[in-house]
C-alpha cells in the first residue's frame, strides 16, 4: 500500500474540521453524563419503556408528545398541536426552561443552566438514534448489585456456550423487533439487567426463569461474550 501525501493532508484537514464541528454542536460523550439528570424519569436504550416521563429513544426529530402509549399533559399536547418537533432549537428551549416552553407541564425538572451541558446532552440524544444500539437504562438506579459481582471478569468462551440459550430469542445480529437486542452492551449494564430479573426487581416470567438459573460467573461470562458479539 502506498500513502499518497495529498490524501494524508486531506485527512488531517477533515479531522480538524470535524473537531471544530463537534465543539459547536456538543460532545455526545459528555452528554451521556448529563443524562444522569434525566434518568430518574426517562429511559433510553434497548428495551427502554415509559416511566414517569416517556422514553426518549428516537426523540430527536420526532414531533412533541407523539407516543400514543404515553399520557401527556395538556401542556405537552398543546406543543404537539402547534406542530412542534424536537430539534436543536426546541430541545434547547425545553432544557433551558421547561416551564417557559410548556407552562403547567408536570415535567418536574428545573432546567439545565449551563449551555455547554445542554448542547452536549442534545448531541447525545441525537446520537442514540432509535436507541437499539445502546444498552437500556431501565432499572438502572438503586440496582443493589454488589460491586464485587460487577467486577468479575467473565470468561467469554463460556459465555459463547451459554449464549446458545439466548439467541433462540435475542437475535445474534442485534435485530430487536419484538425482543430487545442484547449485543454490544457495556458489561456492567448487562450484569445489572440480569440481576434485576434474578432478584425479581424486574418482572418478566421468561427472563426471570432464565436469569435464576445463572450464577454470577455465568452472568459475567455472558456479559463478556455479548459485549463483543453481533457484527
Amino acid at each position, binding site marked *: 500500500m502506498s500513502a499518497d501525501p495529498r490524501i494524508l493532508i486531506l485527512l488531517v484537514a477533515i479531522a480538524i474540521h470535524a473537531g471544530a464541528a463537534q465543539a459547536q454542536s456538543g460532545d455526545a460523550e459528555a452528554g451521556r453524563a448529563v443524562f444522569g439528570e434525566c434518568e430518574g424519569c426517562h429511559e433510553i436504550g434497548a428495551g427502554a419503556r415509559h416511566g414517569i416521563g416517556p422514553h426518549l429513544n428516537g426523540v430527536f426529530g420526532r414531533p412533541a408528545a407523539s407516543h400514543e402509549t404515553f399520557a401527556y399533559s395538556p401542556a405537552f399536547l398543546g406543543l404537539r398541536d402547534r406542530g412542534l418537533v424536537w430539534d436543536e432549537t426546541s430541545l434547547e428551549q425545553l432544557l433551558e426552561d421547561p416551564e417557559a416552553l410548556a407552562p403547567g407541564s408536570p415535567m418536574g425538572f428545573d432546567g439545565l443552566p449551563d449551555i455547554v451541558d445542554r448542547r452536549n446532552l442534545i448531541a447525545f440524544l441525537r446520537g442514540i438514534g432509535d436507541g437499539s444500539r445502546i444498552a437500556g437504562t431501565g432499572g438502572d438506579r438503586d440496582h443493589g448489585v454488589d460491586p464485587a459481582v460487577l467486577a468479575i471478569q467473565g470468561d467469554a*468462551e*463460556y459465555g459463547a456456550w451459554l449464549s446458545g*440459550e439466548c439467541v*433462540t*430469542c435475542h437475535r*445474534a445480529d442485534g435485530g430487536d423487533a419484538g425482543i430487545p437486542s442484547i449485543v454490544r452492551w457495556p458489561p456492567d449494564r448487562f450484569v445489572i439487567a440480569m440481576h434485576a430479573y434474578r432478584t425479581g426487581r424486574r418482572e418478566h416470567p421468561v427472563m426471570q426463569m432464565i436469569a435464576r438459573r445463572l450464577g454470577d460467573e455465568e452472568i459475567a461470562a455472558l456479559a463478556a461474550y455479548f459485549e463483543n458479539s453481533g457484527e
Partner: protein
Amino acid sequence: MTINRRTFLGTGAATTAALAAPQVIGQARGRVVVIGGGAGGATAARYIAKDSKGAIDVTLVEPTRTYYTCFFSNLYIGGFKEVADIGHTYGRLASDFGINVVHDWAVGVDRSARTVSLAGGATLSYDRLILSPGIDFVDGSVEGWDITAQNAMPHAYKAGSQSELLRAQVRGMPEGGVYAMIAPPNPFRCPPGPYERICMVAHYLKSANPTAKIIIADPKPKFSKMALFQEGWGDHYDGMIDWIGPEFGGDKVSVDPAAMTVTIDGETTKVDACNVIPAMKAGRIAEIAGVTDGNWAPVSAYDMSSRTDPNVHVLGDASQQGDMPKSGFSANSQAKVCANAVRGALTGSKVFPARYSNTCWSLISAENGVKVGASYEATDEKIKNTGGFISKTGENAELRKATYEESEGWYAGITADMFG
C-alpha cells in the same frame, strides 16, 4: 455410485468407499451426517460447522429445498401470515458455513459400517450421525384415515402444501358449514398446536363465515394451556366451538374421507373441512436406523446420544428424552447440546454441561398471545423439568400484545439460528 457435484460440494472425505476409521484427533477431518434439515437438524449442522471452523465435515441430508416451519403455520391458516413468510431455504448453510447440503432422502443406515444410503443411490460415511427427522403418523390411529386420505382430510402437521390445503378448505366452507378436528393422543408434536389452530380457524370464520361451527374430537381429557384457550374461545369465539373430550366420546372416532363424514361416539356428522391429526411416532428413518423403542428413540439427556448407539444422536420430536415438549424451541435447544458434544468428541474442543430450555407462544386472537415455558437439566434418567411459567387468564390486552410481539421476535431469532 454417481454424485451430482453441484449439489454435493467438496465432500471428498464423505464419498470415499473406505469404511470409517475411528476418528483420530489431528488426522482426517471428522465427518458428521445430519438427517433432516428442520429445527433440530439445521441448528445442529450450523452450530457444528460454525464452531468447528472447518475442522469437521458436515453433510446435511434434507429432501425439500424450502423448509416451511410448522411454527407460525397456524397463523398462516388464520390469515396473519402468507406462505412465503414461513418458508426458508438452505443457501446460507452451504455458502456461509460450508455445509454440504444434499437434497435427497436418507433411506438406510448401516450402524456397524457407519454409512447412510440415500434414495438417489449415494452412500455417506460418518463418524457421528445426527437424526432429526421429525414425526410420522401411526397407521390406523384414526379409523378410516390413512396417509392416502391426506388431501381430503389434511393433517397440516407437516407444514407446506398440507397447510395450504387446510387453509383452502376452511376458506371454501359454505356459509354455516362445519369444520372438524380430530385431535391427537399424547405424546405429539407441539402440545398447544391443535388448539392454537382452532383459534386461528375461528378467527378467520368469525369475520368471513360467522355462522360456521367448529367441532373438536379429543381423546385427551386435558390439553396444554387449556384454561387459557378455553378463556379465549369464550371471549372471542363464543358459541362457535364445541370441544368433545373423552368423557363425551371424543376418543371414539372414525372418519370417511370419501363421504366427508365424521362419526363421534356413534353419531355421524357431515363436515365441510376436516383436519385429522393422527397419533405420532418418530420419523421413519429413526426406526430404519434401529434406534427406536416403540414409537420414539430413547436418548441420553447429557448429549442426546441414542441409548442404542453412542455414535448416533437423535434430536427433536423423534427423540424420547424426558420432560421437554416436542417443539421447535426444544429441538433447537437440544441441537446445541448435541453439537457441543459432537464437536468435543471429534476435535477435542471443550464440552460444557448440557442445559435446555423451551418457550411456546400461541396466538388466541389478533395481538393476543400467551406463552408457556420451562428450564430443564440433564439427569441419568432423563431431561428433567426444573421449573417454568405460564401466562395467566385475565391478563390485560397490553401484556397479551407484548407477548404476541415477543413471539414475532422469537420467530426471527430461531429461524436465523437455524438457517444463518
